[in-house]
C-alpha cells in the first residue's frame, strides 16, 4: 500500500497560523458590540405607551405582564398599565415590538444580564432601563405587523349624491368588514370613551371571526339603537383607538353598521338578539319623548318586566335621529325597523301625544311610578342680528324637520348656512340636494368646527363652500321683507391670553355682502320646559338650560329622571342612549329595591 505522503504532510499547514492575529474577541477586555438590529432587552417609551397590552397578548411565551406602575393611572385612552417582561421566559422573537400599536416598545442592543437572583430577570422596560433609549436596535417603525390603513368605505360620488337623498355610505361588503375587523387588536381602550361603554372589542372580534349574528347580539346588549349608531354615531371611541396612534383608527362605527344591517327586518333582528324578557313586575314607568334616550329606557325597562309607555308629540318616533338627521345619512326604513323591533318586545309608544297639551304632566304622574324626560333641544337659538325674522331666514332645525317630514321648503338657489356644527353641515348638504348653491359662514377656523371631519369633507365633496372666520352682521331684505343678501365681516383669530382656544375678532372695515335667497341659522338649540308644572320646576334644578341629575340620571325629585340633550352637553345620540341606560339602572333600583333610603334619592 502506497504511503499517502500528501495526506501526512498537508495538515502541518496549520502551523502557518502561528503568530497570526486571533479571530476571537478578548472578552472581557474587549466587548463585541451588537448589530444595529440586534434583538436584546426591551425598552418601552412609557409616555408613548398607552397600556393596550397587545404585547402581552401576542407573546407566545406569556413573558409579558401588564402591571400598574407609579405615575400612571387609568385615564381615557390609557389603561395606566405598562408591560413587564420576564426575561426568564422571553425568546426575543420581537413579535411584541412588531405588533405594538403605538411603537413605544422596542428592543435594544443590551443583551447581558448576570445575576443569581431570579427576581432581577423581571424587567419593566423603560422604567428599569431608562438608558435603553440611547440603545434602540429593533424598532417597529415601518415594519409593523399591524395594518394602519383603514379599508375605505365605499360611498356615492359627490356629484351623484346631490341628485337625491339616497344613503351616501354604501356599507362594507363581507370581505371588507372581515378585513377591517381583523385590524383590531382587541385591547378595549376604546370602550372607555364610549358613553354607553359598548362591548367594542368583542363585537369586532365576532365580525373578524365571521359570526355577524353574535356581533349584533353583543351590540344590542347595551345599545338598542345599534343600527342608528352604526350610521350616525359621533364615535368618540375611534378618537382613542390604539391603532389611531400611528394610523387610521378601526372603523368601529362602520363595522357596527355592517353587523346590524345583517338583520334585514325586525323579526330577523328579534331572532338574532333573542332577548330574555322578564315577566311583568307590576311597575309602571312613563317616558316623555321617543328620542334615543327615551327609547333606550323603554327598551331595557320593558325587557326587565316593567310596563312602559312613551309619550311622543310627533307622529314618528326617533326624536332628533328621525327629524334632525338627514335621510341620506339615516334612512327612514332603518329607523322604522328599530322602532318596530322595540314595539315587538313590549314598548308602548303613544304618538301625537304632547305632554302639557294632549295630556297633563300631573296625569302622567298619577299613572306612573317614575317618569323619564327625554325631550331634547327643540327650540333654536336666534342669530340676534337685524333682518332675522324676514321671509327666507330659516332655523336649521325646523328646516331639517320639515324636509325629513317630506314637506316642501322654498329656499331658492343660493343659500348661506351660519354655524359650524353637524346641524349646520346637515342643513348645507340638504340644501345642496334641493339644488341650491351653498356657502357656510363660520366664526372660527375650519379646524375649530365642532362637526365631524368626515361630514365636513363630505360637504366639500358635494360642492358646499365653507367660509371660515366670517361673522354675520345683518340680513338684508327687500321691500317685501324677503331675504335678499347677508352682510358679514371677516374675522381674525386672537389668541386667548389664558391659553384657551383663540377667539374671532371682526376686522374693522372688512365687510362683504353675498346675495342669497335664504339664510339658514344653525348655531344651537335649547329645551322647552313649559310643560312642567310650577312645583316640579321649583323642586328640580336647572342650570344653563340643563336639568341637574345624579349618576343615575335622577333629578332632585326621586321619581323624576332626565337624560339626553337636556341633561348632558354632548348633544349626540350615543350620550342620550348612555343616559337612558343609566336611568334604567336608577329606575330599577328605585322601584325594585324595597328599602329606599334618603327618601328615594339614589346615592
Amino acid at each position, binding site marked *: 500500500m502506497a504511503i499517502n505522503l500528501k495526506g501526512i504532510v498537508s495538515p502541518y499547514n496549520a502551523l502557518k497560523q502561528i503568530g497570526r492575529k486571533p479571530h476571537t474577541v478578548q472578552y472581557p477586555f474587549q466587548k463585541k458590540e451588537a448589530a444595529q438590529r440586534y434583538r436584546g432587552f426591551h425598552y418601552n417609551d412609557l409616555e408613548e405607551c398607552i397600556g393596550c397590552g397587545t404585547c402581552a397578548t401576542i407573546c407566545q411565551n*406569556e413573558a409579558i405582564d*401588564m402591571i400598574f406602575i407609579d405615575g400612571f393611572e387609568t385615564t381615557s385612552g390609557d389603561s395606566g398599565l405598562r408591560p413587564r417582561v420576564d426575561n426568564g421566559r422571553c425568546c426575543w422573537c420581537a413579535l411584541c415590538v412588531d405588533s405594538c400599536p403605538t411603537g413605544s416598545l422596542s428592543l435594544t442592543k443590551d443583551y447581558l444580564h448576570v445575576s443569581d437572583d431570579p427576581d432581577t430577570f423581571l424587567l419593566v422596560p423603560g422604567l428599569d432601563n431608562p438608558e435603553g433609549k440611547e440603545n434602540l436596535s429593533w424598532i417597529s417603525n415601518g415594519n409593523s405587523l399591524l395594518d394602519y390603513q383603514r379599508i375605505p368605505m365605499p360611498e356615492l360620488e359627490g356629484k351623484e349624491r346631490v341628485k337625491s337623498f339616497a344613503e351616501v355610505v354604501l356599507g362594507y361588503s363581507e370581505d371588507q368588514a372581515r378585513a377591517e375587523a381583523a385590524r383590531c387588536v382587541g385591547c378595549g381602550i376604546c370602550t372607555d370613551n364610549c358613553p354607553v361603554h359598548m362591548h367594542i372589542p368583542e*363585537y369586532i372580534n365576532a365580525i373578524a371571526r365571521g359570526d355577524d349574528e353574535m356581533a349584533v347580539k353583543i351590540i344590542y346588549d347595551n345599545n338598542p339603537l345599534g343600527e342608528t349608531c352604526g350610521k350616525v354615531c359621533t364615535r368618540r371611541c375611534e378618537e382613542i383607538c390604539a391603532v389611531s396612534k400611528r394610523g387610521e383608527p378601526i372603523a368601529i362605527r362602520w363595522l357596527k353598521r355592517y353587523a346590524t344591517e345583517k338583520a334585514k327586518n325586525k323579526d330577523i333582528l328579534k331572532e338574532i338578539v333573542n332577548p330574555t324578557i322578564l315577566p311583568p313586575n307590576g311597575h309602571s314607568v312613563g317616558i316623555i319623548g321617543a328620542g334615543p334616550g327615551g327609547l333606550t329606557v323603554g327598551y331595557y325597562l320593558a325587557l326587565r318586566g316593567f310596563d312602559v309607555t312613551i309619550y311622543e308629540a310627533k307622529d314618528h318616533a326617533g326624536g332628533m335621529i328621525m327629524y334632525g338627521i338627514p335621510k341620506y345619512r339615516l334612512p327612514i326604513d332603518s329607523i322604522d325597523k328599530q322602532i318596530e323591533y322595540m314595539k315587538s318586545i313590549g314598548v308602548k309608544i303613544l304618538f301625537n301625544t304632547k305632554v302639557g297639551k294632549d295630556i297633563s304632566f300631573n296625569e302622567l304622574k298619577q299613572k306612573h311610578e317614575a317618569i323619564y324626560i327625554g325631550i331634547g333641544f327643540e327650540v333654536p337659538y336666534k342669530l340676534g342680528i337685524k333682518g332675522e325674522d324676514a321671509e327666507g331666514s330659516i332655523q336649521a332645525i325646523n328646516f331639517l324637520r320639515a324636509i325629513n317630514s317630506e314637506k316642501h321648503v322654498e329656499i331658492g338657489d343660493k343659500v348661506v348656512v351660519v354655524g359650524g356644527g353637524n346641524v349646520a353641515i346637515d342643513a348645507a348638504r340638504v340644501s345642496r340636494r334641493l339644488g341650491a348653491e351653498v356657502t357656510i359662514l363660520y366664526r372660527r377656523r375650519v379646524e375649530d368646527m365642532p362637526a365631524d371631519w368626515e361630514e365636513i369633507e363630505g360637504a366639500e365633496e358635494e360642492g358646499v363652500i365653507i367660509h371660515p372666520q366670517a361673522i354675520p352682521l345683518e340680513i338684508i331684505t327687500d321691500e317685501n321683507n324677503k331675504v335678499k343678501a347677508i352682510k358679514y365681516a371677516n374675522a381674525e383669530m386672537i389668541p386667548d391670553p389664558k391659553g384657551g382656544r383663540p377667539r374671532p375678532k371682526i376686522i374693522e372695515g372688512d365687510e362683504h355682502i353675498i346675495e342669497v335667497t335664504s339664510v339658514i341659522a344653525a348655531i344651537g338649540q335649547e329645551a322647552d320646559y313649559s310643560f312642567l308644572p310650577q312645583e316640579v320646576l321649583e323642586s328640580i334644578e336647572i342650570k344653563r338650560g340643563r336639568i341637574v341629575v345624579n349618576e343615575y340620571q335622577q333629578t332632585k325629585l326621586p321619581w323624576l329622571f332626565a337624560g339626553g340633550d337636556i341633561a348632558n352637553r354632548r348633544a349626540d345620540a350615543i350620550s342620550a342612549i348612555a343616559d337612558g341606560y343609566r336611568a334604567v339602572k336608577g329606575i330599577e333600583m328605585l322601584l325594585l329595591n324595597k328599602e329606599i333610603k334618603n327618601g328615594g334619592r339614589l346615592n
Partner: protein
Amino acid sequence: MDKDFINENKTIEEIKNTFHSAEAKLQRKNRIIVKLRSDLIPPFLSYAKNYLSFDHLAHFSCVDWIEDNQFELVYILYSYEKNIIAIVKTRIDREKAEFVTVKHLWRQAETFEREFHEMYGINFTGNNRLTEFILEDWDDIPPMRRDFDTMQYSKENFYTRPGREDAQDVREVITKKSGEKIPDFAKEFSVRKLK
C-alpha cells in the same frame, strides 16, 4: 385535461382505473391527493410503490379530527422518477384506533408508527416495536390527541415561580373604570383569550 400537468393527470387516471373507489385529484403542480377507504390503504400503497414508482415515503402524518371522532392518516409518497408527490389519506376510528403497519414497504415507517402509537395511541398491527419512543414514563392520555390540554397538564404538574401575581388584565382594568359589564355570551370573543 390541462397539458401542464400531464404526468400528474396520467397518474390520477391510473389510480382511478385500478382503485375505483379512490378519490384522486390534482392539488397543484407535482402534487396529487388520493383519498381512500382505510382497508384499501395496504394494497394501494403496495401498488403505488411497485407499479407507480412511488418508492420514497417522504412523510407519514396523522391528524386528529376530534369533532369527527376520527384520525386521519396521511402517507406522503414521492416518486423520484415522476417527480410527483402523492398525498394519500385515509380516516380511521378514533376510539378504536388501530391500523396495519406498512414497515414492510418502507422501513422508516416503523419510526413514524412508533411515534403515532405514543402520541395518538394508534396501534399498528404487525409492528412489534411499538415501544417507548420520545416520551418517558408517560402516564396521561396520548399527548398529541387534541383533547390533551397542555396548559392544564402544566398547571397540574409544574409550579409557577412567584413574583408575577400583580399582573392585570387590560380589558378588566378598563371595564372596572367605566363600569362596563361584559355579558357571558360575549366573553369568549375577547381577544385576550388567545392562549
